[in-house]
């Protein structure tokens, strides 16, 4: 029976495995091969050198990478704090209202990210929705908060909120109420219940939400372009420039590979630490 289950499972996963091989693994292999080609070639039939990787260090591309990773880290940390109360409410308090909230958050995804970000530009820019009205009514204006690192991080938090919120709510829903009550009964304060019961038991949700928002934020480009006015350059922006404007595929490939390896490593580390079966609602 177990044997049969196993075979059926493998067969069922076959279509997905084939799609992943063709649509995901093959492009990654091509990019990996291009990354070791000499500069500005458009064919894999060249002698490999690793010049593109030395450019990463010599021409300061590592700064873009550090900015991207740093901003992704900051936005993920902010997202955990911002989403926790909301996710807790969705999982334990709101009841039927949770559905309304879910639909509202999902609806925001129906509008293109760029359009939503430009909406924020119109809201926040000098003479925009907020500053413009304030100046018209009171005569006192203020400098636009746009075009800096904080506004980019704000954009990342805003855009990737759903990717943190839903896994987190799922994680918190897995914390049994009686475990929380038992901890309080045994003398735990609210803070102790949070740190010793809620957070450890919701860990799968926290890890999944963090991975999703971190990975997406690290590869994001629109926020730094639109809200950041390119105050800092994101690594994904460098990759795009190398492939298009720079016509340097090996450089773009090398930058991509570095990002893929770092993010892939973090993702594996995160997933290995948690019980994915638990969050999928399966008993072990």
């Amino acid at each position, binding site marked *: 029976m177990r044997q049969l289950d196993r075979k059926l499972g493998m067969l069922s996963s076959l279509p997905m495995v084939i799609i992943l091989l063709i649509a995901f693994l093959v492009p990654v292999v091509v990019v990996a091969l291009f990354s070791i080609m000499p500069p500005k070639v458009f064919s894999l039939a060249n002698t490999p050198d690793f010049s593109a990787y030395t450019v990463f260090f010599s021409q300061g591309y590592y700064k873009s990478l550090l900015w991207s990773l740093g901003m992704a880290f900051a936005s993920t940390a902010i997202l955990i704090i911002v989403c926790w109360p909301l996710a807790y409410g969705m999982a334990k308090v709101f009841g039927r209202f949770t559905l309304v909230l879910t639909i509202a958050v999902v609806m925001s995804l129906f509008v293109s990210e760029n359009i939503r970000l430009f909406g924020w530009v119109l809201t926040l820019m000098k003479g925009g929705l907020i500053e413009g009205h304030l100046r018209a009514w009171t005569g006192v204006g203020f400098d636009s908060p746009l075009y800096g690192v904080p506004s980019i991080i704000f954009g990342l938090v805003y855009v990737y909120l759903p990717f943190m919120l839903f896994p987190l709510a799922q994680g918190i829903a897995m914390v*049994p109420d009686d475990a929380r009550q038992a901890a309080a*009964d*045994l*003398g*735990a304060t609210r803070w102790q219940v949070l740190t010793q019961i809620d957070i*450890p038991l919701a860990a799968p949700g926290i890890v999944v939400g963090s991975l999703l928002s971190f990975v997406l934020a690290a590869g994001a480009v629109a926020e730094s372009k639109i809200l950041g006015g390119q105050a800092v350059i994101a690594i994904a922006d460098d990759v795009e420039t190398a492939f298009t404007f720079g016509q340097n595929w090996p450089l773009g490939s090398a930058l991509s590979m570095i990002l893929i390896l770092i993010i892939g490593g973090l993702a594996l580390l995160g997933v290995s630490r948690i019980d994915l079966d638990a969050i999928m609602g399966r008993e072990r």
Partner: protein
Amino acid sequence: MTDAALLRLRGVVKNFGDFTALHGINLDIQEGEFFTIVGPSGSGKSTLIRLLVGMDDISAGKIMLRDQRIDQMPANFRPTCMVFQSLALFPHMTVGQNIEFPLKLRKELPVERRERALELLDLLRLPQSFYDKRISQCSGGEKQRVALARALAFDPEILFFDEPLSALDYRLRKALEKELKDLHARTGKTFVYITHSLEEAMVMSDRIAIMKDGKIEQIAAADEIYSAPVSRFVAEFMGEVNLFEVTSLDGTSLQSNSLTIAKGITQSTFSVGDKGLLMVRPEDVQFAEGNDSFDYMLKGKIHAEFALGSRIQYEVEADGKILTVETLREGRIQDPEGMQVTLGFNAAKTHLIGDT
């Protein structure tokens, strides 16, 4: 006696919106006793225990622990502790970490915590190797013991139990009932236990309170509740029972359908026309043979037979109703169905209940 009570409840009321779950509960629990609250589901016993441990707020009344009001105190400040129906063990911690949890909250040193946890494993008869086991590796009975050890580590003034044995299979439940009683004797702690199972209550408790519809029907020692229930509800809740609806004829004798009861049992204040219930337990009714003499005798016909293991139960049509008779296995009747029999019982084995 009430002065020495450890826990005192006075007029405790709990409302959920328009619904009143508890109607003014008065209760005194003595230090060191094993007190059980029994009732069917919906009787309010779970609501009551949630108020006692501080998981819900009372609507009116007072709860006093050693003459100090605790009803407004949050659960984490109360010196009491509960073993949950689900046990509520922390799945992300080892057995040892679970037991040490209350000690860790009090910032006790790791060495002392470990020592206490190992002592408690010994007390609960679990091997010390369990200290590093994961909760998911423990069996149902082992989890019970871990939950108990964790509650004892807290060193509560009163240990509450919310039907912790109800999810276990029959044999394990029986074994743990005895163990719990033994643990009560060894620790000398005050145990307050709630259950819907009369059997569980009878095995373990010093005193029992029977609850119905948010009120306490009777509080007494197990034996007394069994032999002298105050109402039809308690009589029927405490196992199989035969009840004769009786009317007082003249203050000294009572009349049911076919039975006139005169001897000795009408000591209570019945006036003419008052109604009551005469109770006799199935094991106190016997089949009369030959010259056997009983205070009361009835003719009837055996309707059905059930083998209960060590005993046999018969349903007998008599006095216009079905009576239950229980005998030991030796007294089994061959081919009983439809047989005409005479039933007999003695006045000393009966009990008169005032209300109907």
